[in-house]
């Protein structure tokens, strides 16, 4: 059935990965959803009111007092993580007490995007200005932890 030892090994590895025993993991953590430009086009400084902003965007995650009124902040966080545990195969050969030791040989790579959209209101609740504190996109992952940050 299998032409070579390599094919047998690859099939065994694939089977173990498919039943969730593998040394590879992708994990993503997301807080809220990002806004796009079209979601925010309705906000006009000097015209739009707090009620309008809340009706379209929901309640802000935080409010901060400013000398002229207040700032409403909407948070967004997105992270992706990739793990490979190179010590995982050793767990099949080591005695039970040493099962944690091989898992120190782990390769991890993570990317994080954090964004905050802010709308400033005057004391009567009319928008003064709006803007993003950062403009990161959904994170990608570098192939290696040693490569340069783009």
């Amino acid at each position, binding site marked *: 059935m299998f032409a070579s030892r390599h094919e047998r090994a690859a099939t065994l590895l694939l089977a173990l990965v498919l039943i969730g025993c593998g040394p590879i993991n992708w994990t993503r953590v997301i807080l809220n959803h990002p806004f796009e430009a079209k979601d925010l086009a309705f906000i006009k400084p000097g015209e739009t009111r707090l009620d309008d902003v809340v009706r379209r965007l929901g309640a802000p*995650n935080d409010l901060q007092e400013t000398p002229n009124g207040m700032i409403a902040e909407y948070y967004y966080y*997105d992270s992706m993580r990739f793990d490979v545990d190179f010590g995982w195969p050793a767990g099949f050969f080591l005695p039970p007490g040493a099962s944690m030791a091989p898992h120190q040989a782990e390769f991890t790579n993570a990317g994080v995007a954090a964004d905050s959209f802010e709308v400033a209101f005057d004391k009567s609740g009319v928008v003064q200005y709006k803007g993003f504190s950062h403009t990161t996109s959904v994170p990608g992952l570098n192939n290696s932890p040693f490569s340069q940050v783009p």
Partner: protein
Amino acid sequence: MLGLEGCAFSRGDLGAPLDASRVSDIKNGRTTEAQVIALLGAPDRIQEINKRQVFHYYRYAMKHGTVLVFSRVNIASDDLYVFFDQNGVVEQVVYGNRTNNLKFQFWPFGHTEGD
């Protein structure tokens, strides 16, 4: 049973859900601080913004899914702000619910819009 290996779903909450019917009982210009506390309990945070007291109630919900080697954690919050005038009467209510749309997902790739 072998096919269920590597599957896990879990959820977590920080804070009690905000009862929308109780939130709608808060009326601008009529409801007092004491009545808001009787309806919703003590606020999670009290702020002062432009000499107005603001009660902030919040709740966070998390849904996590793992299938085989893929995991995803979705988190969202509900926030309620109640603004009071200087006499302690409600002036404005700002409420948003994001947790109703929170989903169990496991696929970690792709854009989040339209999830």
